[in-house]
């Protein structure tokens, strides 16, 4: 292993990081919000500690307090015996928002090197550390590219390389993989499958398999180079009327200048549906996703999971024959995700709509789907088409504990590993 990745430097203390009675409250607009209350724990030299909690638990706030980016309202953070009041030089943070934590005006190399320049390391040493760190995350080939030329996963690797090259004693990571998706330009090759009315089909495949490309082709948003997409005997050349799409980026698929109700209503208005009917459909859809109480809020006033519910409500109110979903839950936390998965099953059963659900999460595909289509790596073909013969009534704990569930999951996992190895390149 390279020098950049060796264990933290020796210290005479067993406890490296000590968090004692940390509390953080926010005041503003006449309200006081308690984000973190009286938290105490310590982390030893060389430990790998995970912090888990529902969204809104204050995980990010805690991490920022530890990193010295926020001053706790009460309590102390101690690193190697010294109290943390500002970001200490021996700590590095990897943020969730990779797109906003890399400097877009610098190359990958420049980004990784910047903190080292700040440390006033000699040039030769900097070069060496940068090279080693990029090698460690498998990005040696793109050292002179700009961050925005890379996929989300690769951008996050750059952020990790930057943290590693910095040689910190403590590496803090704030949900670094929550927003990593399967952005890709991969080619599709000769894909063949059909979906019958009323099916719920999941498409899984390794990152880079072109799942998003496939979905955009089906939605009529992207022209196919060869072959055709047929909906009810009609060839799809532009977005067809009977299809609705739910995108992964909920924050960017809702109109921020419209209220929740207006967002759901817009496609219906556009169809010149009479007002009465519109109102009823919107109310029913919002009710179905459990958002009947917030019609007059704006999307950005809601949490990520709720925003995605709005996007689902909009699709439901549109009364499509086919509902396409592109990794809709990739960017929400695990608890919300479970709720939303159940919501999709309910919507599917009550409305009898046909759903094509793209995901990179194997568990999710097995849990949701009546059928799972496994894609291979680029160039993409259908690797396997599996019927999910689990009971129709599914619940998060029971279904996932079934031996059959584990079996199916293992089978798909196996196929995907094969696909990756077969293609012989890293998973971007």
């Amino acid at each position, binding site marked *: 292993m390279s020098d950049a990745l060796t264990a933290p430097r020796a210290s005479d203390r067993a406890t490296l990081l000590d968090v004692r009675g940390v509390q953080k409250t*926010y005041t*503003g*607009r*006449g*309200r006081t*919000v308690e984000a973190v209350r009286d938290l105490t724990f310590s982390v030893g030299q060389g430990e790998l500690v995970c912090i888990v909690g529902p969204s809104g638990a204050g995980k990010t706030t805690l991490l920022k307090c530890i990193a010295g980016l926020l001053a706790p309202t009460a309590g102390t953070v101690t690193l190697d015996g010294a109290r943390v009041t500002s970001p200490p030089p021996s700590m590095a943070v990897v943020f969730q928002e990779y797109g906003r934590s890399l400097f877009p005006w610098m190359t990958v190399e420049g980004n990784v090197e910047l903190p080292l320049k700040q440390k006033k390391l000699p040039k030769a040493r900097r070069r060496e550390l940068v090279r080693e760190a990029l090698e460690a995350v498998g990005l040696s080939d793109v050292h002179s590219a700009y961050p925005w030329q890379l996929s989300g996963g690769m951008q996050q690797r750059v952020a990790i390389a930057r943290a590693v090259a910095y040689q910190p004693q403590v590496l803090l990571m704030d949900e670094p993989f929550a927003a990593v998706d399967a952005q890709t330009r991969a080619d599709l090759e000769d894909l063949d499958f059909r979906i019958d009315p009323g099916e719920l089909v999941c498409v899984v495949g390794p990152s880079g398999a072109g799942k998003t490309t496939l979905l*955009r082709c089906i*939605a*009529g*948003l992207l022209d196919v180079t060869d072959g055709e997409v047929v909906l009810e005997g009609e060839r799809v050349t*532009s*977005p067809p*009327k009977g*299809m*609705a*799409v739910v*995108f992964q*980026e909920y924050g*960017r*698929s809702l*109109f*921020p*200048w*419209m209220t929740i109700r207006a967002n759901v209503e*817009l*496609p219906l208005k*556009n*169809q010149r549906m009479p007002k009465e009917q519109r109102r009823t459909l919107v109310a029913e859809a919002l009710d179905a996703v459990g958002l009947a109480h917030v019609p007059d809020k*704006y999307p*950005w*006033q809601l949490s990520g999971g709720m925003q995605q519910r709005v996007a689902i409500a*909009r699709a439901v109110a*549109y009364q499509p024959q086919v509902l396409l979903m592109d990794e809709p839950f990739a960017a929400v936390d695990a608890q919300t995700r479970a709720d939303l998965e159940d919501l999709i099953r309910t919507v599917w059963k009550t409305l009898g709509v046909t759903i094509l659900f793209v995901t990179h999460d194997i568990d999710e595909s097995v849990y949701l789907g009546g059928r799972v289509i496994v894609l291979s790596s680029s160039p993409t073909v259908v690797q396997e088409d599996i019927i999910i013969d689990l009971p129709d009534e599914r619940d998060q704990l029971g279904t996932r504990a079934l031996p059959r569930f584990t079996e199916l999951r293992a089978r798909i996992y196996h196929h995907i590993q094969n696909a990756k190895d077969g293609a012989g390149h890293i998973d971007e």
Partner: protein
Amino acid sequence: MHFFLRAARALAFALVLPVVLVVAWWSASASSTNYYWPPLKTILTTFGDVWFSDRLQVDVLPSVTRLVIGYAGAVVIGVGLGVALGSSRTLRRLTEPVLEFFRAIPPPVLIPVLFLFAGIGNTAKVIVIISGAVWPVLLNTVEGVRAVDEVLADTSRSYGITGPARLRRLVLPAASPQIVAGMRQALSISIILMVISEMFASTNGLGFAIVQFQRSFAIPEMWSGILLLGLLGFVLSLLFQLFERRSLRWYHGLRRSQRGEK
């Protein structure tokens, strides 16, 4: 109660510096005997005499009318052209060099030329204002339209929101933060050009009046005119802020939530 307390504090903060400056000017100029630098007291007395008379109708009203028409024209033309240019790459490539050239011409030099063709009446002055104020609106609109979010665009397409509905529901609102930024710059340019065009050749207007006062050595009157222009600009910018806060409420809320503030 809490609200009023906070509002009062905000008002106090906003007033401290102006009050200090006025007091400083007042006391520094109180015993001034310099002809060109009269006491503030004299200027303020003159202010009432000069501007709360028929000058309000003779000079102020025409100026403001020209300003409003010119500014509105610049916004309409800027947004209209900007949307067209922002939506079409071909159109952009076709017009870019020409637009860059016209943009590089300082509008005041157009004044003598325009006065030759359009006379010294209102039309020429409005054209001068438009020719200078249209650029920030145009360029910002082009940028705003080009930067419409891809996912939002896909969402609109997949729900069949195309053509005029797309323009009204997606493009204009999405570009509105940039458009408003351009409009803010255009407002100050409009005021400057309004005054300059009236200083050249005119029979009425604020710029005309100030130059007249200066030429006839009516110094306190001249100062009072400058004060009035300052006040006019200040009031207009306040109105603009009000408009911006209302029309871009969603944008500021979105930005706040993105920065992690509640």
